[in-house]
């Protein structure tokens, strides 16, 4: 190590080095261990003169060991109290970021597998057709209509047997508003009555569906 470099380092210890000198020294420490040792010596002189406790390189070794992910046996501690097998490699003090990422990914993979299994299981165990027996007894009809201006086309379609489906044709006719309301009322009322019956049997806690039925049973104005 040249005298110029040592003098620059001494000035850096005193915050009197130029910016160029500071950068040069910091760069040089990457490759020169003796420069770091000289820095440590200068700091030790300062600490001693100020009456501070002195530390060698042992603390730095411990810090670097921990940062490198290896918790070494602490030399300060009495060996009789902390027996450490020298062949044992300790886990890092804190889990490294890649390990945490891997753990998270694994958890997500497990969660996705469980969700997939549940979906498949539900499809196998419970088929889609879950219509109540009452509804199956009669063909389910879908009513499509538009509010008539002058002339309307009403298509009545159903989900009955194939024979019924062949025979069924769209019916085109002119509907008045009164006819349409009557048609809706006729279709809707039986469903609401069945719903009320089911509610009374299954739930039995409310008379509200009956109240609705009573309202529906009256002709729609």
């Amino acid at each position, binding site marked *: 190590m040249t*005298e110029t470099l*040592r*003098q620059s380092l*001494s*000035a*850096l*210890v*005193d*915050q*009197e*080095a130029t*910016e160029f000198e*500071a*950068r040069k020294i*910091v760069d040089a*420490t*990457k490759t020169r*261990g003796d420069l*770091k*040792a*000289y*820095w*440590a*010596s*200068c*700091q*030790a*002189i*300062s*600490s*001693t*003169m*100020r009456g*501070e*406790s*002195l*530390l*060698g*390189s*042992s*603390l*730095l070794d*411990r*810090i*670097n060991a*921990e*940062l490198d992910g290896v918790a070494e046996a*602490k*030399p*300060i*501690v*009495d060996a009789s*109290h902390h027996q450490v097998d020298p062949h044992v490699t300790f886990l890092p*003090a*804190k889990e490294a970021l890649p390990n945490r990422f891997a753990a998270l990914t694994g958890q997500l993979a497990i969660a996705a597998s469980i969700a997939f299994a549940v979906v498949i299981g539900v499809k196998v165990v419970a088929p889609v057709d879950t219509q109540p027996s009452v509804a199956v007894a009669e063909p389910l009809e879908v009513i499509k209509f538009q509010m008539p201006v002058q002339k309307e086309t009403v298509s009545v379609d159903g989900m009955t047997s194939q024979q019924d489906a062949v025979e069924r044709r769209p019916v085109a006719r002119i509907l008045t508003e009164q006819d349409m309301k009557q048609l809706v009322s006729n279709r809707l009322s039986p469903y609401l009555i069945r719903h009320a019956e089911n509610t009374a049997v299954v739930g039995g806690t409310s008379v509200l569906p009956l109240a609705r039925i009573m309202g529906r049973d009256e002709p729609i104005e």
Partner: protein
Amino acid sequence: MESPVQKVEAENDQLLVDRARLGDRHAFDLLVLKYQSRLLSLVNRLVSNQSDALDVLQDTFVKAYRSLHTFRGESAFYTWLYRIAVNTAKNHLASKLKESKDVSVDDEATGELSVLQDFSAPDEEAGAEELQRAILHAIEQLPDDLKQALTLRELEGMSYDEIALAMNCPIGTVRSRIFRARDHVVQEISQQFPGTFL
């Protein structure tokens, strides 16, 4: 109000912090070597023994390294380290207290207080004291102009400008005298304690 020396120190520390953030561990080593003794004096007042103090100090620097990205430079780096050290010492004391309570139950049966024992190694402490004596002795042996310049810098905290005024000499001479004083002491230590510093 920040003095010019403090401002330069903040800039130098920031340079080291920036390098350390980029993964330059040597730059962080310089920060550790710079502040370890100062922090140890602080931590020694907070915890019961030297061994605990070193543990706290180690945790402090490790936490600091892992949290360097949070250092904004709004305060001095030492102030930031100081806060980490105090919090770490508090946590250490709390865990120690809990540990000692747990152990005290067993102590009734065994009659031992192993946790409360001081684990500090006498050899290491003695070595540090011997080293300090050697440093002070080497400083005593310095020529008066070198010793005076070094003392004004280290004990009085004067800047090179102020020392130049006090000693009535150019600032370059001050810089040279302080360097030669340190260099002489380092040579002495290296001969007496080879391999002490890294």
